[in-house]
């Protein structure tokens, strides 16, 4: 093993569930981290980046492949790594000082020395004066500072950050990022390397030396970008913007030909496309926002302008693509004439347009065909759920149905009665559905 190599992830795959209800979270991941590196794992939600992080810390074990730390395979919790959690994971019944001291107590320091050391760390992250406060009395940013102090208390070699800033408001997140970078670049942290999971491109570029981009279905590494801009980095630098565009291109990809875009129906050969988790409202908002612009629109700008999180935005963009209301190319989104029409249409017209397009989606068409084939034109929700199970893990099957029913209801194609859990075919659409049975050309 080369010198300075801390972590080596060798061909790691993680499969959840068993038998015919399996779900591959990440597949064949290779990744190395050396001393002194700050690496960011970047990708849309559901790409398995948190799963990968949990395998690296030893919280879960890989199904295949091995995680090596300093050349030794990791079994159980990796004692040289520690983690800062997205949701802070502070114990609400313990004060700030007790939360930090508890990490030291776990390492066997039972004497009062642990409080002295905890005190120093609380000072380091700038929380002096708040030692006896309880987490619920602190703002999100301050809570995360406690999270950092606790993680640093055990002097980890590898500091793992699981979307540490995404539960914070914009200002606190910015401030905390700056403070962390000051400590890191000033070599004031005991950690030898940092691995951060993020879904925020700007955040990754402003902090990391290397960005590993992940894609989903199943989670895999798409590509890597080295960031050699000097610290502190600002968006105004030329290299920064260019990098944002390149990374967006890698994540959002480009619109595929239609057959591939909409996928195949459940139970038929080919990949069943997962319906993005977004709503008609969000779709309308997005299309209205970009409709005045006739050429491509920078996706990264939308995040701020619409005030949405990147993973929600990506889902809505996917929905627009899937329905043929927009196309995506290299970090740009372009509205189609159909999308334009939707953005400008009246409420009823929108329903009509949406229904026309949604009816072509294999998932919804498949549900309508099944309903059509049943004598009463209605079927229990469970039937669809069970049919989806071979292809999706249980939670996702449920979510997929929720999305399909939500879209179907808006389009007045299918209806759902929560009290008896029955999915019904909307009568007025029964005929059209039958006519539309043929797959789109």
């Amino acid at each position, binding site marked *: 093993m080369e010198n300075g190599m801390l972590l080596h992830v060798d061909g790691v795959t993680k499969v959840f569930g068993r038998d015919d209800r399996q779900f591959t979270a990440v597949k064949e991941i290779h990744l190395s981290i050396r001393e002194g590196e700050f690496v960011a794992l970047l990708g849309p939600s559901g790409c398995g980046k948190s799963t990968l992080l949990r395998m690296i810390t030893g*919280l879960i074990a890989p199904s295949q492949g091995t995680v090596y730390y300093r050349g030794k395979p990791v079994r*159980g*919790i990796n004692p040289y790594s520690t983690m800062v959690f997205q949701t802070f994971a502070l114990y*609400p019944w313990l004060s700030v000082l007790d939360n930090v001291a508890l990490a030291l*107590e*776990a390492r066997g320091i039972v004497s009062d020395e642990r409080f002295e050391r905890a005190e120093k760390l609380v000072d380091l992250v700038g929380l002096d004066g708040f030692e006896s406060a*309880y987490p619920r009395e602190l703002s999100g940013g301050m809570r995360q500072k406690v999270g950092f102090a606790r993680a640093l208390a055990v002097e980890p070699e590898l500091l793992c950050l699981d979307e540490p800033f995404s539960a914070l408001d914009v200002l606190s997140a910015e401030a905390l990022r700056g403070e962390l970078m000051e400590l890191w670049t000033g070599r004031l942290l005991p950690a030898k390397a940092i691995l951060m999971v993020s879904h925020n491109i700007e955040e990754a570029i402003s902090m990391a030396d290397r960005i590993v981009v992940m894609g989903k279905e199943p989670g895999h590494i798409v590509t890597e970008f080295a960031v050699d801009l000097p610290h502190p980095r600002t968006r105004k630098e030329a290299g920064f913007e260019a990098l944002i565009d390149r990374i967006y291109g890698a994540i959002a990809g480009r619109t595929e030909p239609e057959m591939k875009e909409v996928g195949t129906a459940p139970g038929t050969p080919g990949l069943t496309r997962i319906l993005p988790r977004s709503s008609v409202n969000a779709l309308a908002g997005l299309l209205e926002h970009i409709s005045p612009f006739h050429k491509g629109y920078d996706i990264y700008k939308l995040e701020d302008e619409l005030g949405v999180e990147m993973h929600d935005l990506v889902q809505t963009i996917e929905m627009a693509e899937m329905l043929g209301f927009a196309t995506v190319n290299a970090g740009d989104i372009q509205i189609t004439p159909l999308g334009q029409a939707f953005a400008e249409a009246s409420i009823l017209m929108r329903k009509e347009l949406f229904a026309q397009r949604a009816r072509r989606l294999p998932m919804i068409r498949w549900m309508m065909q099944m309903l059509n084939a049943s004598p009463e034109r209605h079927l229990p929700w469970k039937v669809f759920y069970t049919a989806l199970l071979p292809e999706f893990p249980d939670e996702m099957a449920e979510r997929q149905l929720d999305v399909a029913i939500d879209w179907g209801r808006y389009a007045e194609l299918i209806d759902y009665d929560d009290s008896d859990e029955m999915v019904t075919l909307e009568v007025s659409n029964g005929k059209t559905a039958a006519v539309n049975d043929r797959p789109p050309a």
Partner: protein
Amino acid sequence: MTLRERIFRAPSRDGVLFSSSDVIVLLIIAVVIYLGAQLAVGSPEVIQGPDINLDPAALPYYALLSIGRMLAAYILSLTFSIFYGYAAARSKRAERWLMPLLDILQSVPILSFLPVVLLSLTAILPQGVAVEIAAVVLIFTSQVWNLTFSFYQSLRTIPIEYREAAAVFRFSRWLRFKQVELPFASMGLIWNSVMSWAGGWFFLMAAEIFTLGERDFRLPGLGAYLQTAASQGDTSALLIGIGALIGIIVLLDQLVWQPLLAWAERFKVSQVSDDNPTTSWFLNSLRRSGLANWGSRRIFGPLNRRLNRWLNRPPAEVAGLEPVENGKRSLLGWLVLILVALGIGYGLVQAVGLLMTLPLAAWGDILVGALATLLRVTVAVCIALAWTIPVGVLIGTNPRAAAVLQPVVQIAASIPATALFPVLLLGLLTIPAGANIAAVLLMLLGTQWYLLFNVIAGASAIPQDLLYTSDLLHLKGWKRWRTLILPALFPYIITGLITSSGGAWNASIVAEFTEFGGEISHVTGLGALITSATAGGDYALLLASTLTMIVLVVTINRLVWRRLYRVAEYRYRMDQ
């Protein structure tokens, strides 16, 4: 925390009335009762009861004895809960058996065990000891299930990030228990302890006053004091006794439970501060008191440190969080399993043999008795519904009424129904059909409070905007009840009914067959059958009627309550 969250919730499985584990659990219970009945044959014919001194000066001593029994049973319950909860939450295989067992045991009418337990224990142990143990066992079985379920539930619902942090920071078992699991479970454990103590008093009183013909199983304690006072017609002693009982319950509430609840506020998980947290004057004065502070510094501090040093060993290796795949059962495991199965099989054959000796007519009696008791339970529950819904809504929606009525209701509810039973008999046995009325009244006393508290909780949880909306729509009278109030109350009423009908079945054991002032009076009923079979030494009948009651109650639970509960959970929830 709303009342509803505190109420014990049955783990629900879809559709299946009885799973295979349920059937096996029921069979095991049958074998255990059979063994008890077998042992009971050796029980002495005559058991000398205690002499109860009605002098008020003796009351503190009796009170101490009663509290001691409660405390012993409670400590036992808490310890059991923690181990059982751990076992069920840690291992998938154990969970498959432990949860149905818990589910059935919590719906079994516990008092139906009392005769078997008393008889079998007196057969093998010295009388004084046996009766004490029987009382503790009975209270234990009334207190333990909701505590266990609460602890198990807490273990299973600890937020994943707390568990992940505990793993990443390499907590030892002890640290995990002390700093994560116990704090997280504490709120539920304390609330359920309050409920368990309330229920425990009911069974303590029942155990303390139990007599059967020549066998006097009574125990020196508050219950026996009240019963003796009633049967001797000593009204002043009766009043002093009831006063003492209420006093003890109120004191325990003020000096133990309220401070504990106020102290446990900090274990609430919510990240926002509560507007009106539970407070306790006693806890506040403790916090100010120099003596208490000295005690915590000099005694608890060092004790805690020593315990930590002793138990907190940093583990060499910490496992990840994924459930460990169940390995193959070892040879020894199989051997034990086969032996246990053989034992149960043998017991079953014997039990069935005993049941076969029972004439057909006796089975007819059991059927008639079961129907009669079912009718009484239904009447009691209906009466309870009829008055608790209007009163509960009045208290729940009207702060001024609540201020006056709430404390009255709380004190009234704190009196265990069984303690009042001798008083009821005193007044009712002379009038025609008095025994029947007394039986229904006792059931009512034991059931109505659960219902009332749930209705109050439900009524006060009706969202204000819905109340405004129905005002705006001019919904009045029956229409308002039908569209807003009753649907909103439905889940709470069902939750209350589950507990209260269980209480009514329990009460039938002591209510249907009574001995008062040397005279036996009984009505037709399953409870009367169980007690009279015990008195008459008819062990086949005892086994058959006890089993019938258990199976009947469990079936009603599954068939009626659980279904209604699911409907309530699903359709009439106010919180989205």
